[in-house]
């Protein structure tokens, strides 16, 4: 139902979004994954008609939004990355205003406010001023405000940055429910792998303005089907040993941490023998070895040579 076609945005000398083609089907939950500065927010601004593309197009139900953004705006609920609320007002007052913008009034307005407050679990604190809320609660109102006009498609730009785990779980659960139980179409942007893995049917991975991979979680992980990740923990730090292990022939990538090491190796490579041999030689004690199935994080690492949080 929603499609972007070679969407491109150029700011003076940065190519923020480069030839991005996405598609959202009805009822789907799609993740847009990418590190800081990948161009996620810029892409979303263009999709939601707030920013004109340098080239390319955005279509809703087959109609371009460039000439008439009205159709898109009616369908879309946008949860911005920054909290966009009147913080000197209460949650209730904020929602009332955003509802009125869409022509809601009277009983219908009150009902809708009640519904979205329930949805984000803030009914009993609706009279408090937004500025007195915790970061997590503000995020929840930020979502609620985008839900006032019963949108068909919900676009969220990193709705969970900087909030406590409890609020985060609540928010993720809310989104999952909206998608599963109410059939809402969701585009979810994040640089947290776990969230996207948990929430989304399909994923686009963006880096430096480009979509570098797309598909269902399984399809993406299949990229790594010929790989394994071995995670080794030691009793203490052994920089020299870690360096040595990283340089073993066949190791494709190494991620060194304080007392542990993550090595990406081809499936079937016989690493363990040399691992224990080297550890013995350095007098190091291996406390834990774990062979992992690949995560999206590993996919990103493989595709870009960097971790998402770099």
């Amino acid at each position, binding site marked *: 139902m929603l499609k972007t076609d070679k969407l491109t945005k150029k700011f003076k000398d940065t190519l923020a979004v480069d030839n991005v083609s996405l598609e959202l089907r009805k009822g789907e939950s799609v993740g847009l994954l990418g590190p800081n500065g990948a161009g996620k927010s810029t892409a979303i601004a263009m999709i*939601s*008609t*707030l920013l*004109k593309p340098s080239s390319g197009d955005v279509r809703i139900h087959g109609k371009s939004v460039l000439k008439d953004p009205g159709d898109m*705006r*009616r369908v*879309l609920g*946008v949860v*911005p990355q*920054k*909290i*966009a*609320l*009147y913080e*000197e*007002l209460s949650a209730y*007052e904020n929602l009332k*205003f*955003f509802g*009125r*913008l*869409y*022509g809601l009034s009277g009983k219908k307005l009150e009902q809708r406010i009640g519904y979205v407050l329930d949805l984000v679990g803030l009914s009993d604190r609706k009279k408090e*001023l937004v500025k007195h809320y915790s970061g997590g609660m503000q995020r929840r109102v930020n979502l609620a*405000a*985008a839900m006032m*006009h019963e949108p068909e498609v919900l676009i969220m730009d990193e709705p969970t940055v900087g909030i406590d785990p409890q609020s985060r779980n609540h928010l993720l659960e809310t989104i999952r429910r909206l998608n599963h139980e109410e059939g809402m179409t969701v585009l979810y942007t994040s640089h947290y792998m776990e969230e996207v893995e948990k929430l989304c049917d399909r994923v686009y991975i963006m880096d430096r303005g480009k979509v570098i991979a797309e598909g269902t979680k399984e399809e993406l992980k299949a990229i790594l089907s010929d790989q394994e990740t071995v995670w080794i923990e030691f009793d203490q730090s052994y920089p020299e040993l870690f360096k040595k292990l990283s340089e073993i022939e066949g190791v494709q990538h190494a991620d060194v941490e304080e007392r542990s090491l993550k090595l990406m190796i081809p499936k079937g490579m016989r690493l363990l023998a040399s691992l224990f041999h080297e550890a013995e030689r350095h007098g190091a004690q291996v406390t834990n070895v774990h062979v992992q199935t690949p995560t999206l994080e590993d996919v990103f690492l493989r595709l870009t040579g960097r971790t998402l949080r770099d």
Partner: protein
Amino acid sequence: MKAVFLLQWRRFYRQPLLVLAMFVLTIIFVSVSAAGGEEEPVFVPVYTESLKQEQVLEWVERLNAEKQFAFKWMQPSEARSYVAEGDVPQAVELMEADYRLLVGREDPARLALDSMLRRVYSEELRLEDAAQEVPEIRELMDSALSDPALQLSAASLQGKGEADKLQLLFGMTLFFVIYTIMFSLVRIVDEKRTGTWNRMILSPVRKWQMYLGHLSFSFLIGFSQIALIFLLFRYAFGFEMGDRFWLLLAIAACYTFSIVALGLMIISLIAKPQQLSAVIPIVATGMAMVGGAFWPIELVTNEILLTVSKVLPITYGLEALTSVAVYGNGLQSVMMPLAMLLGFGGICMAIAIRLLEWRSVS
């Protein structure tokens, strides 16, 4: 638009401090300065070594007519001891066609005293010269003064203190309301920064309705501030403002419109909140100084400043208010300043709209 307008009142209700501060500051400044203006005139001893009693009395009466100082005739020895003991900074010795200051210590008022004495003396001497040729000149002068050709001089002669107080009230009111209006318009910039503006853009509400909601709030809050202050000073403090109060309100409305438009133009030029909070006080204070809100515009002699004042709304606002409240003029006589205010507002608005549209396209 209604939703946007009503929201601003809600926000005002939650955060009224800034506007109330401007309101209270106006009242404090006006009442403190107006009270200061009613101080007793400074006492100045007068003595003579050469003049006759009736001549001295005539001079003292003439000098006291100026109301600036209180001159009192006394014996030379008494006057000298006043000065010698430091009770007064100076005394005046009157002579036939001249005067002398007996100075005890430095005094900031001396310059004013000296220039006033010089003026009264030279006027009097000129009159005496003229009387040599036309003996009845004094009678002519007196009858001319009691039956003036111009209403203006009559009004300003009888109520000089009142006029000063009104000038002060109008100046301060028009000055402080600039802050109220402009800071309420800064909310537009803030909304663009926090993202609530984008939320509105995504809603069915049109952009012009969003602006209109903000502008009408800023207009109303500014106008209410002026109207309330005028009402307060008229009824609670007993300021005499003439019988055309409705016309004063009409002028206030035109002035408010021009400042709202100016504010919109400024925020269309400067988009950063921090820069705005520096620019607004500069604009407000600069306009008020040059436009005559802090002191009568008649005191400004610099050509450049006078020319600049001709394009400032505050100049015309003050001119129109003074004309109606002090000189009792009607709508006819303030048409020109009102037209200037509306024209100024219209131009600013046009520029602002062009700039704002232009920016939203890029």
